[in-house]
């Protein structure tokens, strides 16, 4: 009998499928006001809170600007690519330029509690849900 072994790739595969299913979801939908759709964002739920992970490879931390107000988060910045002088370019696929994107989160968040981390070309925003937005248990007397 063939036993199923725990496969570390199986979780990633399941995750890829879950992401696929979420593509074109209308969760942020038309509420995402922005200059463009760059950079691409994935939003996850972690307990009560949200985690937004943004792909921004090759951006200097100093060139990144994240702002938050009420339930709106703005990610703006500039991606610069410097080629050394006197080179001949064989292939040029990477894009550079400015970006400015605003996410409107469909729940009450605590803008002061947002934490941002930039590592390995990924910007992670930890967005806590506002205390007043959390569901409460009602005591029945």
């Amino acid at each position, binding site marked *: 009998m063939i036993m199923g072994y725990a496969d570390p790739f199986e979780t990633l595969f399941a995750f890829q499928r879950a*992401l696929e299913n979420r593509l074109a*979801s209308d969760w942020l939908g038309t509420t995402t006001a922005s200059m463009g759709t760059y950079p691409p*964002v994935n*939003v*996850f739920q972690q307990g009560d809170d949200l985690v937004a992970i943004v792909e921004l490879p090759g951006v200097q931390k100093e060139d990144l600007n994240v702002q938050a107000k009420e339930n709106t988060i703005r990610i703006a910045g500039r991606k610069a690519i410097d*080629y050394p002088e006197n080179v001949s370019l*064989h292939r040029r696929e990477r894009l*550079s330029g*400015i*970006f400015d994107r605003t996410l409107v989160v469909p729940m009450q968040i605590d803008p002061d509690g947002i934490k941002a981390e930039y590592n390995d070309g990924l910007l992670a925003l930890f967005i806590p849900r506002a205390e007043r937005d959390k569901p409460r248990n009602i005591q029945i007397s």
Partner: protein
Amino acid sequence: MADKQELQVQEKREAEKAQEQTRPLRAFLPTADIFETEEALAVVLEMPGVDRSNIDVNVDNGVLTIEGRIDFNKYEGLQPVYSEYNIGPFRRSFRISSQVDQDKIKAEMRDGVITLTLPKAEEAKPRRIEVRTG
């Protein structure tokens, strides 16, 4: 001038497999820049989410292959609610000429971007030829 340009999303392309894999895991093609200086060929690849310990670079039979794995543990306990890009390992191969000194290939990683420097072999470097007047 290029800096004023507004950035657009590049859809992640899936890596084409030379052989079929045993696991149905999808790998993606990192976007690449390749340029050449007098001394070397440089290959720059964007692999967001890959740290330097998860990169494999190898040259086999004149084919340079770069693989970057994602540390999936960072995503544990996260439930996707909205998604604009897929996550998976990166993989890309290039055929390089024998003019490259394969033993001296260097790699450098920063902010999810890997830069490979492939020094040209001595005999492939351009030489200045003096023209003397007789």
